[in-house]
């Protein structure tokens, strides 16, 4: 069974004359189909945590195990392979390639290690249909609205059946109505695909919908369900 296990993760940066600890001693566990919201104040290291979980960056200490495979000791190409085959990224700013159509943007992950096959082409079409953009496949990002672009980004993230979806403020740039739609879509797709979903968000409406919430607060991570945290009050 797919799972993600984070053990005593710490991240610090060396800057000029000082050392800046972003977060310290984070531990968590997630299983297939589970959703997790990561919340916390600005500068608490939410995006950094996501980058580390996505193998884009290495922790200062601690370890991560995804589907039984530890991140430590992996080579660069092994990390790239994990990102390609097991992880899907959704960014706040969608990060679509402006020169490619929606359909083509979905195929970019496929081009990472080979050529596009019929199966993959079909998958791209299906995903775009799933996110409600069946009629907009040949439109470029500049011809899509903010919400539509984020749908494309979500579809792209799911292209290779990832076991882990990482979304960094996926609705941060959207108006509340669209944000809610996107959030719903994200959750629905994640459930349909049975992936683990970790979402960094400021929005309580989104975090409420997650199975669990992880609060990043003054280097001390507190784990709990949304309801229990609601009882204790919103984290600062």
């Amino acid at each position, binding site marked *: 069974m797919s799972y993600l296990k984070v053990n005593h993760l710490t991240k610090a940066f*060396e800057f*000029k*004359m000082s050392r800046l600890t972003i977060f310290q001693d984070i531990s968590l566990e997630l299983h297939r189909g589970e959703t997790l919201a990561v919340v916390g104040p600005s500068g608490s290291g939410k995006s*950094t945590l996501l*980058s580390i979980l*996505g193998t*884009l*960056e290495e922790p200062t200490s601690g370890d991560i195990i995804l589907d039984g495979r530890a991140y430590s000791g992996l080579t*660069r*190409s092994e990390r*790239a*392979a994990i*990102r*390609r*085959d097991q*992880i899907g*990224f959704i*960014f706040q*700013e969608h*990060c679509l*390639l*402006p*020169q*490619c*159509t929606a*359909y*083509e943007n979905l*195929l*970019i*992950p496929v*081009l*990472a*290690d*080979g*050529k*596009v*096959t*019929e199966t993959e*082409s079909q998958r791209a*079409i299906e995903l775009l249909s799933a996110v409600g953009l069946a009629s907009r*496949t*040949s439109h470029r990002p500049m011809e899509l609205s903010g919400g539509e672009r984020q749908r494309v980004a979500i579809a*792209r993230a799911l292209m*290779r059946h990832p076991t882990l979806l990482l979304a960094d403020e996926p609705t941060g740039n959207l108006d509340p109505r669209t944000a809610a739609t996107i959030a719903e879509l994200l959750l629905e797709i994640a459930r349909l695909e049975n992936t683990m979903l970790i979402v960094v968000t400021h929005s309580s409406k989104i975090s409420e919908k997650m199975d669990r919430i992880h609060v990043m607060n003054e280097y001390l991570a507190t784990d709990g369900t949304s309801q229990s945290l609601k009882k204790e009050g919103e984290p600062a």
Partner: protein
Amino acid sequence: MNTDHVIKNSSQRSITLYALSRKSFLQYWREHLLVFVAIAIVVAILIGGGLLGDSVQNSLRDRAIARLGGIEEVITSEIPFRQAMGDAIPALSSGTFVTPVLQLRTTITTDTLNSRKPPEDEQKNIDDHINIDGQKNIHDQKKTYTASTSLMGCRKDFFQFFPAAHSQCQTKTLENWQGAIIAVNDVLMTRLSIQQGDSLLIRLPSNSDIPTDSALGRKTELIRTVRVTVVPLPNDAAQDFSLTFDQRKQPLAFVPLEWISDQMNMSGYANMLLAGHSRTRQTESNRDLERNHDAIGMDKTILSSIRPTLDDLGLSISESQLGVWNLTSKQMFISPLQQKILTLPSFPKERQEVLLWLANTIAAENKDSQPRVDPNMSTVSPSVAIRNDEESTQAASDTTRQIPYSTVAASTFFEPFSQHFVDSVGRSIPKLKSGEIVLNRWTSDQLNIKPGDFVTLEYFVPDTTLVPSVEADRPKEKKSTPSESLPTRTIRFQVVAIAEMNPYTTSSDWTPTVRGLTDAKTMKHWDAPFPFDATRIRPEDEAYWQTYGTAPKAFISDVDGQKMWGSRFGTMTSVRLEKVKKNGKTLTIEEFAFILSHDISEHLNTSIFPPRLVRKEALASAAGNTPFGVLFMMCSSFLLISAMLLIIQLTQLSIERRAKELGVLFALGWTRSRIILLFLCENGWITITGALLGIPLGIIYAYILVYGLQHWWTDAIGESFVHLAIGSESILIGLSSGIFISMSVIFLVIRRFSKQPAFYLLAGNLATISNPSRQHLIKSIRFKKIAVILCILMAIGIYSVTSYPDLMLRAGAFFTAGLLVLLAGILWIHQKMQSKFLNNGTPANEFQLKSLIWENTMRNPHRSLTIAVLIATSVFLVTAMSAFELYPAQPTDRVTSNAKPWWETWVAETDRPIPYSLTTKQDRISAGFTDEDVSQLSDVKIYGFRSHGSDDASCKNLYHVQNPMIIGVPQTWMNRGRKTETELSAYQPLFRPMTQDADGVWRIPMIVDKNTAMYALQLWNGIGSCFEMRDEHGNLLRFELVGMTTNSHFPGALWISEEHLLTLWPETQGWNRWVIDVNIPQSIGSLSETNILPNATSQDSKRLKILGDVLGDFGWSTRRLMDVQREQMNIQNTYLAIFQLLGILGVLLGLPAMLVVQLRAMRERQSELAILRAIGFSNRRIQWILFMENCVLLLMGTGLGVIAALVTTIPLNELGSSVPLLKPLGLFLAMIGLGGGCAWIASRQVFRVSIVTALRAP
């Protein structure tokens, strides 16, 4: 793997890596546009350089081929041969023909009979060889012009080698090609300032039978003047005709062959044979010519099938009354070349070889005299001794027992003739031994001598220039009259027999024909070329002359004869044979001559008349010495570097803007290599399209360079002759090199960015990307500080060396010092930039606008440093290159009131050789100078040189030299007092003996001008390396470089010892090159070139005028050595100027690069500058900030470059290289102006956007 599945809906085609790259290319086309232009420039420079090289090479080739016309082969000979020799060549193809030519170097002067005044503006010497006597003839207000010219005596068929003439005048000239007419080329027409119908005076050499350098050779009346009338050149295409390969046009004149051979007493003879085919079409190109050549199927060795006769070798065979066949030479001596005939199979081995000479006196030795035996005469029989002058004089003064001017024969013993060589009792006189002499009856009676007695022979040394091998010392000069100076020698012999007067011993055929002597009616009528005292002739001598003519009065052994009279001119004067028989039948002389002719053709043609395949030589020569393509690419290196920097900067900027895209691809699982591949594919589109644009740009660049060579930089090539040639090979090479370089540069940039962690790329925080770790920074700064100190110390070390052996070495050393200072400066600036990241920023109370400007400049240290380094390096190189500019050596002696004399050196040359070296006072008197002239020239030192060959081997000649001029250095050169010990010792190796290598080739020591050695002869390995060439007879010669000179007197010549020159080319006569040291009178005050020459000129030119007046008929011309040196130096200086100009262009190209980068960078800084505007900065203040940011970089770069350049140039100032302040100042001002313009344009872009919009910009 299966290829992409094509979905039916065309809008949903699958994407591939290459399709993605193409999409990206189109998406970011604006960013790519400038990269595209930069790539086009890179390719243009590479193609342009290559095409220039092709153009020069093609132009050289075309010029060489055009000058030859249809000529394929040439034969030349020092012995004149029959004009008809070429007529007998069998089976010539259609259109192929052979024509004889009489070619010589001569002097032509305008005739005062010309009534037309020369043009008024013709005041200066336009020909370096024009006689310095350009004074106006005050009587008739006309000027006389003189020019050194190549004169061709030819038949009219010669002009068929060139495309046919069209004008009526030309056709008419051709039809009437005879008599005293001359056709000149444009160069000569201009130099002499003449027109058709004018009259000219030609100096022609008088044909001399006996070599001039020989004691019996004529030394006066060597030149006669004839008058000719100028007619149109029968064929314009012939006016550039030349058999030497030099791009510069030379004066050339044509006269009818028949006429000139008559004038030179050589009727029916020529010295050159040309073979080739006619060119009938006016516009026939060289390619057509070659195709024509193949179509005709011409035998490439036409001239190898000539049938020379004895006459063509300058030999003749006659029969005497005794039936003796006598082979003799027209030049008295049978030269080593002519002696080859003796090796022919048909020439009898049994023969008598005779060397006949003239004894000034045969004297009976007084019985009571005690001759002194010279201890050095160990190789000669003890009975042979040299008398000293006093003894000889005493012996000679006994006129009752001496006879004057007698021929003496030295011969080999020949059995068949011995029966005729008998004494008074009829006994055959046996073979003579060394020291023995046989007198004929008449002589013994005159001297009252009997066998056993001794006689002395006094004679002129055969070669007046070299000592024969019989003596170790040079013979003392003995004057038979006060005014004569031919060296003589006296040898003692013992009489062993008295030969009877019989037809054999009294035959005149012992003596070869010598015009003026052997054909004189009486002895007193001799037209003797040697010092001759007719008062010594007695009636008995005349009686002998009338009866026996030139019959020898004495006979000696061949061994003694060789030692006494053998010389480079030859070791025999006749060969005597019995009648030759073949197959039992006695041949007639004509039959024997015919057989010999056949044998000569079969066995000796290749050695005596080897054909020169001039067309092949032309093509080989046209490969040239100077690799213009590479040279101009190096000169354009700054343009190339600037363009490459532009590519780097723009690519960098583009990728920085797309950093997030890079991050996304990483996030999506793309590997680094795949991302690099994607960007390379994208940039590949740019590169290929940019490179294709570079092709026409390259052609334009090549055109501009060719134009520059033709008009601005003619000093580098001597003449405007280059035309643009577009070769596909250079284009392909330039294209592929440009693509490779551009792609490599782009690859390196992409690779650098792809190394960044994906997280940073996603963040798009460019400042963060550049930030190295603290530890790394500290280490780097420390290393740079140490490196700065080391560089400064090394530069100081170079300065502390007080002397360098060579000016160029010194310039190179100081250039290196400048480079070290530049490097130190760059490192210091870089570590200063890096130190910024270790600080906490400027303290609060010290932060001013300048701090903000400085911070802004350092925001992207890598970019800022690149621009500063580019500017600093270009300013340094452009300025410091002046250190290598060359100027002629200034006189170093300073004149004060206790003056040492000044010496100025001139070089001179003549068209015809002069029989005297002019070194000694006696030489000058013999040459025709009066006592007063000699007195005036008393403080003028002259060193005479012989020479061979004609090609200028200096850098002025762009062709690869085939037959370089070779100068023979006399021993007297070592006595040149002004030379330092170092300089003198440099010449010493020249006088080492020649050695023979294992392959049989002779190795001759040689000294050459350094630039000539390196660049023209390409002797890259320096001392010890060899230059090989073939002489006129096809023999390979190997010249070993044993020394190099700078500022040589004859920079285009190979210097070998005179002795070696005469060994290799024994036929060389007289001297034709001189170095003249003129003592300049005292002058007061400081010296400069401008003030010394006016003071000196009047005295200088007066003395040199004397030389010109006396020796003008030989084509005497002088040049200041400084001018010779300046001409050579101008070549290097021109290339330096080209480098500097193109370097400046490169720098100026770098500035638009800065503009572009700045404009692009403005996008990054929009919000930052909007904040300043929002706070309250005025537009003007912001413009000032941007301008000052540029100035910081410019000042940094220029200042550093100038300091480094001054380090190089200041120490060299005293040697004539000026401190070049104007260039860097001009460059700096130009850059400030451009920098200001860049800032203004960039700021306009900023102000176009509203503050609110800019604040919201990402």
